[in-house]
């Protein structure tokens, strides 16, 4: 492919897919910050420890407090 071919295809491409021009210069149609905050909030919720895990931890802690003799058994099985 020579330079002329290259130019011709480039021109054809530009005629078929015109540059966005004004559209690209206009910027987003809405303020994106609220959506950004939502995205950050969603992720914080996803990464939060679920309540069930806390409940399980509390149950294990209570069990160990009530039956300290079970600690070596638990450690043995870990």
């Amino acid at each position, binding site marked *: 492919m020579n330079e002329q*071919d290259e130019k011709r295809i*480039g021109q054809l*491409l530009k005629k*078929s*897919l*015109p*540059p966005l021009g004004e*559209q690209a210069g206009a910027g*987003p*149609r809405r303020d994106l910050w609220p959506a950004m905050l939502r995205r950050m909030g969603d992720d914080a919720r996803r990464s939060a420890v679920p309540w069930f895990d806390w409940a399980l931890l509390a149950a294990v802690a209570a069990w160990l407090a009530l039956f300290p003799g079970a600690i070596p058994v638990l450690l043995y099985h870990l």
Partner: protein
Amino acid sequence: MPVLEQPSDVLRQFCHGDLDAFEALFRQHQGEVYRWIVRIVRDPAAAEDLTIETFWRIHCAHARFDPERSFGAWARRIATNAALDHLRTARHETELPGDLASPPVPDPDIAEEVRRKTTCAFHRLPPKLKTAATLALIEEQPYQEIAEALGISVGAVKLRVFRALRLLRKELKRQGIEP
């Protein structure tokens, strides 16, 4: 795209995860990031989502940013990667979406069939080649800016554009169009 530099204290605060500093940077750069992305993906709705995705990646990577460097250039590079990821996964669009306020009008001198086939062939290009060709040939962005945004050399951008043109020529020939 002009790179608006920040007072270094805002950038330093951003590096330490300060949300106010991040908001200041977001508000200042969201327009530039959006305009860069919309040039690549040619879909305003997707560009808005990708702008948020870009700033989400920026937020996650705040500790890795060097405040002595340009935030705009860093943001543009992340935006380019987000747009490339989108092009890899998105269905191939053959036309611009209808939500453009005034979509650019194709040249009336070109036959509808040729235009359609060229557009289809272009959308079948690998995303990396398509991005380089879109920015260089359609949007006429400087090669240096494209190279910085893609994280490659100017020579590599030219090579990608050349490969895109070669593939386009081959595909158009296959469809009976002699460019």
